[in-house]
């Protein structure tokens, strides 16, 4: 069938089952928006800044397990995507991004609104394409979706010059991909699987260290089986949170920099570390030579380059965590480990995760209340900072994929657009945003998108009138020389809500919050709750820079 490449692009998206595009139009992508308008089968969410489009698509992907799709124009539209692309890349989130480009004849001439976006995004995309031949477009889109969603997922960018988009082609969507340089390994090596199972049966003090790969491969049921069969405690990385139920007796919480002491102690003293879809990030390991010093390490990951990158691994298994775990489980027998579990119980008792209740309005209390009131039945998006760590520490996640947060990049401004994307992907779920007054001010413009789309997001601002996380670092490492971490002015977020026609509340105490919460959580509207919390509060415990994770201090 004859059509323009722009029409072909939309047709490809339809055939890929795309239901929603997050985007922002402009001159260079005009033909594509025109084709989108004529097709009418795909919903377009108009954001207020391209960064918001990527974060929203990213959260949509995390919430639904589908590929997030983004559109933006050339030049500034494309550069506004960069933070969001890097974020998706670091957290292995499948995205396909289409950018408009100046016409081919002008490429390379510093034309109006020209940037080399394929060059700029080379280190932060799994792959990218500049479409020079309109006939190749369908195959490129096919490849883009395949690359984005298989293996270790990630963002793929397709840069489409305006003249190419307008060319007429004979449309034919390929059924298969032809990529000889791209063949992810899914099933683990058999002998390694047997070796791993053998070690698991023999170990006396095993710990399961589970990362985002558990969620990406849908291995949460297998993880649970493994933990219960082995009677092995489970710690999650930040990215792995919600991959194991927060109230399970074998759960140790998060490990690492702001991890629980008992998770960090268990890892330090284990004799077998079972790393599943995790990448030994520096925030997890602390001083690397003191990380699980006496342990044999089994590392399962779909990305071979992660295995052996930061630590020495004894049993490397390249493959999909779910498939590999199924293979391993077939060789395991129920194991009792009362001694080790008793030790862990003692650590939990001795070093509970807690905070000082001194009558001031504590941010941790807000998270505990949210967790209790929702019984974990919420999707929680966060921004970046102290509030994010308090969510990680104090929210008890119940269902896989219910924490939506910027892990690897730690990008402030992720939260609000992420809540938008998550709520669009899951219209019937309760979506809560926990943000800080700093982070919210980075992408606050997306409130308008939430209103446009009638999204009943519940926004809790843990308002400490400043950049709490950095203030804490200055308290710790700069002798309390506070520099550029207190805001002289913070907008009244409850009044801001009014400007958008939304309900807004300011609360100053736990009691006020208690009174307000049931109504807010059951409201069908978008609500902002501005919580004026103790600005001095710190995230505790913390592993001081350069120390082993068993050296955490209270803070």
């Amino acid at each position, binding site marked *: 069938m004859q059509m323009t490449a722009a029409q072909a692009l939309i047709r490809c998206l339809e055939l890929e089952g795309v239901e929603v595009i997050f985007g922002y139009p402009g001159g260079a992508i005009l033909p594509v928006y025109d084709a989108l308008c004529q097709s009418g089968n795909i919903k377009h969410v108009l954001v207020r800044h391209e960064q918001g489009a990527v974060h929203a698509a990213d959260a949509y992907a995390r919430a639904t397990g589908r590929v997030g799709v983004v559109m933006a124009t050339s030049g500034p539209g494309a550069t506004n995507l960069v933070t969001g692309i890097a974020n998706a890349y670091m957290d292995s989130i499948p995205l396909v991004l289409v950018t408009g480009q100046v016409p081919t004849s002008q490429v390379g001439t510093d034309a109006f609104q020209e940037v080399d976006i*394929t*060059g700029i995004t*080379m*280190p932060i995309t*799994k*792959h990218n394409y*500049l479409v*020079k031949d309109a006939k190749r477009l369908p195959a490129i889109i096919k490849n883009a979706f395949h*690359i984005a969603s298989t293996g270790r997922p990630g963002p793929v960018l397709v840069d489409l010059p305006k003249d190419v988009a307008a060319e007429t082609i004979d449309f034919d969507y390929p059924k298969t991909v032809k*990529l*000889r*340089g*791209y063949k992810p390994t899914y099933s683990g090596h058999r002998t390694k699987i047997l070796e791993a199972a053998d070690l698991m049966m023999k170990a006396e003090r095993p710990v399961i260290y589970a990362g985002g790969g558990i969620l990406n491969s849908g291995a949460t049921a297998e993880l649970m089986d493994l933990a219960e069969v082995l009677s092995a405690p489970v710690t999650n990385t930040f990215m792995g949170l919600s991959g194991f139920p927060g109230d399970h007796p074998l759960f140790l919480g998060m490990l690492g920099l702001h991890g629980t002491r008992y998770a960090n102690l268990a890892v330090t003293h284990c004799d077998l570390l079972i790393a599943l879809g995790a990448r030994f990030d520096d925030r997890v390991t602390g001083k690397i030579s003191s990380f699980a010093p006496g342990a044999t390490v089994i590392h399962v990951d779909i*990305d*071979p*380059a992660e295995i*052996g*990158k930061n630590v020495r691994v004894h049993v490397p298994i390249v493959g999909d965590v779910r498939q590999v775990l199924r293979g391993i489980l077939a060789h395991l027998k129920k194991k009792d480990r009362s001694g080790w579990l008793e030790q862990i119980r003692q650590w939990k008792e001795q070093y509970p995760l807690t905070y000082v209740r001194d009558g001031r309005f504590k941010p941790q209390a807000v998270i505990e209340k949210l967790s209790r009131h929702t019984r974990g039945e919420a999707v929680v998006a966060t921004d970046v900072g102290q509030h994010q760590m308090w969510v990680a520490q104090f929210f008890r996640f119940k269902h896989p994929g219910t924490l939506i947060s910027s892990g690897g990049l730690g990008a402030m401004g992720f939260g609000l657009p992420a809540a938008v994307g998550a709520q669009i992907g899951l219209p019937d779920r309760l979506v809560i945003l926990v943000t800080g007054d700093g982070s919210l001010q980075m992408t606050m413009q997306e409130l308008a998108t939430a209103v446009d789309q009638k999204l009943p997001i519940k926004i809790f601002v843990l308002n400490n009138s400043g950049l709490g996380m950095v203030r804490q670092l200055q308290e710790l490492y700069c002798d309390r020389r506070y520099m550029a971490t207190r805001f002289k002015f913070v907008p009244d977020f409850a009044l801001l809500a009014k400007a958008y026609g939304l309900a807004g509340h300011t609360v100053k105490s736990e009691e006020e919050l208690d009174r307000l919460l049931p109504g807010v959580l059951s409201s069908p509207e978008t609500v902002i709750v501005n919580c004026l919390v103790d600005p001095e509060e710190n995230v505790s415990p913390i592993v001081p820079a350069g120390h082993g994770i068993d050296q955490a201090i209270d803070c």
Partner: protein
Amino acid sequence: MRHTLAVLVENNPGVLARVAGLFSRRGFNIDSLAVGRTERPDVSRMTIVVEGDDRVLEQVTKQLHKLVDVIKINDITPDEYVDRELVLIKVNCEPARRGEIMQVADVFRARIVDLGRKTVTVECTGNEGKINAFEESLRPYGIKELVRTGKIAMLRGNRSTSLDGKKDDE
């Protein structure tokens, strides 16, 4: 230790930038990189000489493999292979001393490819050691300009690192 990698890549625009960007971004040290076409028009071959211990090399190989345009990587360092490099050297030379330079060139089976009023340009092919020695022999005359291609390499005998070839094919 230095390793020689034979890397087959899609003959796509930007593939060199992807590979070069990867090396600089991850702090891998490239000694040399030579790229050109192969027996197949859709495949290019890079010969990359990289410095590093086994762990670095493992990362280099794995990271290269993550590039969608990289099809096949072989570390041929421990194997028997032929390697060649080409150098062009322009040497200061008054017409009266041309004979001397020609003699040096003869020893290395190099060829004079151009003459200027006060210079001679010579071409030499060989493995890295030979090219180094040739360069040293000409240095006393004053090297005005020098350019090396970087090495290319191929396994000896029936074995091959081409697209369908097997390294351990006998």
